Every structure is written in structure tokens, then in C-alpha cells.
């Protein structure tokens, strides 16, 4: 799987800071939870690629829903790299490395599925939700305006509960507040969002005896397990295998939450 250049199909703002980026994409096939490394400019600044979760496979149908003719990423403009990306238009070419990493493991057929997202953590969960087509979603954001993509999940028939920090939609407070009431030992939780949210979700799941998978985000230079920049501390469970640090890019980005040392995240 080499670097490839792909054509931009669309690059449209969802709101003032969020964009949907459609890319022409044939192979290799994407699995939910995979990410890609994009180079936003040919220049030297910014130098490094940026990791982006894959939101959607375009044009995939039925059994082949993960094999389409394009992919959609959703990104937030946060710095120089994403600023440059937001100025790109249809027909322009981007260098992409991917798909990379290990995706979400499929839930046991008898498991209740709860997805929990914080902010941009919603991105990899949509592809997952569209594959399994069941479960419920707990979606946390700063305010209502950041929850626009929820309608895509509604279209899949998923039940959604919202939490916003400013109270403009749903529960006023953190999305993890909603988790306590809805999980049992028969639940498998799939979580993606900021590290404090994931830590809280992992704690609640451990207490309730529910399985929890988290998708982590870290600054990374290569995306292929060689720069060793995206290390996170592994729990003692992992230390037995002499893996004190695990790499988000190549060991993850999806991990069983029990494998992470949450006190040192």
C-alpha cells in the first residue's frame, strides 16, 4: 500500500469550522476506525502529514458498502494544516497514505452496542454505525451547532442522546454523564473523543463490567509505526508482554480500554 494521489470530489463547510472532504478512492478497502494520512501541501511548512478518520465510504452498496468509489472525511479547522486544507477545491489532488491502523472490532451478536462520541470523535463512529446498523449513540459537543452530522446517524435508525456543554441541545454537561444509566455488563461501548472523555468512559465501563473500545488520537509524524511519536502508556496488563508503550497509529488507534494506563494518558 503505497502513497497515492487522489482527486478532491468536494470540500464543503458543514458549519464555520467543520468541513466535509470527499476524495476519489478505489482501493484499498477501508474498515471502520481506519485513518488516512493526508499531505495538505507540497511545501515544507507544514511538513508532516495529518491523520484523519474516515467518516463515510461513498457509493458503497449492500454487502460491498465498504467498497465504493470515494471516501468522505470530516475535519475541523484548528491550525495551519487544516486551514490550508479548507482552501482546497474540487479537482485538486492530494497525497494520501492509507488506510492505516486497526479498526473497531465487530460486537458480539448478543451485545448491546452503545457508541459515545465527543466533538470530532463522531467521525470514525459513523462508518462503524453504518456497518453494524444497530445500537445507540451518545453524542457530546460544546454546543448544538457542532452536532449537525447527527442527522446522518438518525437516517441509519439509531437512537441518539445529546449532551452539550452550554446546554443548547440535550443534557447540559458531559456526554459521559449519560453513559451510567444505559450500560450493563452485556453492553459493548465504542468511544471516540477527547482523552478526558475517554478516560471517564473507560472508568464507568470498568465499574459496570461493560466492554469498552476506544479510538485514540495523538500527534503523529509517520502513521506507520516507525517514528514512535504517538506512544501512549500501556496498562500493567500489557506490560506482561513487555509493551510499556503502545503506538496509537500501528497498535491502534482502536484499543480495548483495559489496555491503556488512563492515569498517564
Amino acid at each position, binding site marked *: *500500500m503505497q502513497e497515492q494521489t487522489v482527486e478532491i470530489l468536494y470540500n464543503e463547510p458543514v458549519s464555520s469550522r467543520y468541513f466535509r472532504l470527499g476524495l476519489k478512492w478505489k482501493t484499498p478497502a477501508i474498515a471502520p476506525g481506519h485513518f488516512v494520512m493526508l499531505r495538505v501541501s507540497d511545501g515544507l511548512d507544514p*511538513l508532516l502529514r495529518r491523520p484523519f478518520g474516515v467518516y463515510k465510504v461513498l457509493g458503497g452498496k449492500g454487502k460491498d458498502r465498504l467498497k465504493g468509489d470515494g471516501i468522505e472525511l470530516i475535519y475541523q479547522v484548528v491550525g495551519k494544516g487544516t486551514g490550508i486544507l479548507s482552501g482546497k477545491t474540487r479537482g485538486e489532488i492530494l497525497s494520501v497514505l492509507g488506510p492505516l491502523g486497526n479498526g473497531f472490532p465487530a460486537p458480539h451478536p448478543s451485545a448491546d452496542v452503545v457508541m459515545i462520541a465527543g466533538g470530532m470523535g463522531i467521525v470514525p463512529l459513523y462508518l462503524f454505525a453504518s456497518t453494524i446498523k444497530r445500537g445507540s449513540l451518545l453524542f457530546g459537543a460544546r454546543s448544538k451547532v457542532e452536532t449537525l452530522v447527527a442527522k446522518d446517524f438518525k437516517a441509519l435508525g439509531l437512537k441518539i442522546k445529546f449532551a452539550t456543554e452550554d446546554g443548547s441541545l440535550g443534557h447540559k454537561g458531559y456526554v459521559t454523564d449519560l453513559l451510567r444509566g444505559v450500560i450493563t455488563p452485556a453492553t459493548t461501548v465504542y468511544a471516540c473523543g477527547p482523552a478526558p472523555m475517554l478516560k471517564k468512559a473507560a472508568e464507568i465501563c470498568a465499574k459496570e463490567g461493560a466492554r469498552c473500545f476506544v479510538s485514540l488520537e495523538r500527534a*503523529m*509524524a*509517520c502513521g506507520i509505526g*516507525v517514528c514512535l511519536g504517538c506512544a501512549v502508556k500501556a496498562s500493567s496488563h500489557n506490560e506482561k508482554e513487555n509493551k510499556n508503550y503502545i503506538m496509537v497509529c500501528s497498535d491502534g488507534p482502536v484499543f480495548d480500554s483495559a489496555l491503556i494506563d488512563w492515569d498517564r494518558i
Partner: protein
Amino acid sequence: MKKTKENPLAIVVAGIKLKNPVMTASGTFGYGSEFVPYTDLSKLGGIVVKGLSLKPRQGNPSPRIVETPCGMLNAIGLQNVGVEAFIDEKLPKLKGVDTAVVANIFGETLDEYIEVAKRLDDAEGVSGIEINISCPNVKKGGIVFGTDPLEAAKVVSAVKKATRLPIITKLSPNVTDIKLMAKAVEDAGTDAVSLINTLTGMVIDIEKRRPVLATTTGGLSGPAIRPVAVRMVWQVSQAVSVPIIGMGGIMTAKDALEFIIAGASAVQVGTANFVDPDSAAKVAEGIAGYVARHGTTVKELVGSLTTG
């Protein structure tokens, strides 16, 4: 081109035969086999693997990297599998790959350097040893050896005695006069020098008023440091007669050729491997194009700079 004609890209550095002058820099290319899905290893002159210590090392806490203008700062902390696991598990994966494999080594004590070198001496498929006396990201050893000419010379002569393999000493740019360091390790018996390792740097998060890296400081690499590296290679080439391997921010063949013209017999591509895992092969290809266009050889180009 006639088949009998000598390969215009070939160069011998410290007795190590390279089919072209492009190697990959330690710490940016794993143990080599990780790049098989992304590039053709046989297009490279050589591979320098991730720095090896006697025992496995877990590395530094996170965050370990931060991007900077035209570069990046890292403080990985020499995380590696240890020399035994390298020999047993990683090295066999490179068997049959037509490229030179150089093992980069480091220790916290002189004895550790010696032990690691001894283990590699009998390993099949290792063409040479690069001694890291210059990593800025470990608390013990490393940088002390790399900034004191007497200490550096001690490491080099001890490793030289411990192995029959050619040795390359990797120099730190974080010194007042790199020529002194180069001269000291040359006198101690190194077969070649490689430079530069990263420049010590620091990035601060002004909202938190804290350093971004968990270790406070880290090593700066990437094109931001290239002019400094070229200058140092040129200076060292004036001071020593052992071959030089130049590195520091090489992204393209043009960048690599600057080092060669300045006096480097070979180059190492580092941070560029993160941006494009095929970049070292592309650099080699670009040098081949330049050499053909100018009707010359790499050997002729080395140190061909005219000044004044």
C-alpha cells in the same frame, strides 16, 4: 550505457560498499522491514536501523513529538527492542535484501557500548556499526559522550577494539566546534563520521505555560536544520580525512547533492521518511538523474565545492 561500465553511483564508505550514496537515518526507518509495503529497499544504498541498546528500552513519556516550522521536535528516548531481539527477530527479515545494513548503537556506559558492539560482531548481515554518541533525549550517557572530545574518543577506541566491523561515529551539532569532535574521533580510530544528529530545541504551549514535550526539550530535525548541517559537513570535511556521511533535513536529491558537494561521501535521509516512506529511494533516483545529466560520478562529486 555499456553493462561493463562502472556504476557511477557506487561509493565505498568506511569499507562499506554502497550501490548508491543514499542511506536512511537511524530512528526514522524502524528496523527496515516496516518499510517493505511502501518502498523498494533494494533501491537504497544502505539502511541504518533504530538505535540499539544492550537491554530493551521503553522510551520517554508522551507527548514525544511536536511539529515546528519546516521540521519537528522529537524526544522518543531511544525506545528500542534491544540488541538481542534485533539480531533474533528483526535482522533476519532483511536477509536477501540487496542493501547495506548498518546497526546504530548506544549505551549509558562505556561497557554497554562495548557489549552491544560485541553482540553485533557475529551477526550475519550487518555491514557496519554507527555509534550514537549524540542523542539529546536520554538523561545518562549519550550527550555527555557526544559533547566532550575526550569522552567521545574513549567510546570510539573501545568500540573499535570490540568489533571487526567498520565503525561510523555520529556527531552532535550541539557543540561549540564540531571540527574538534570530528578530529577527536578520527584520532581514536573511527572509520567514518556521520553528521548531524538533531539540534536541541524547545516548544512552549503559551496557554498552559508548559513545554509541549513531556521531556521539556527535544531534538529538532527536518529541512529547517539543513543549512546548519551542510555548513557543518563542509567544516568537518576541511578538518578530517575519514569519509563523511551527511544528513540533516534532506527531502530531495537536490538537498542530498548539496551535502555531497560539500564533502559527504554518502547521505542519510531521515525525517523525510515520515512524510513519504518512499522518499529515500526517490532521492537516489534523483541523484542518478543528476549524475547522468552532468556526465559525472558520485565519487567525483564528493567535496567538489569551489569557494571564494
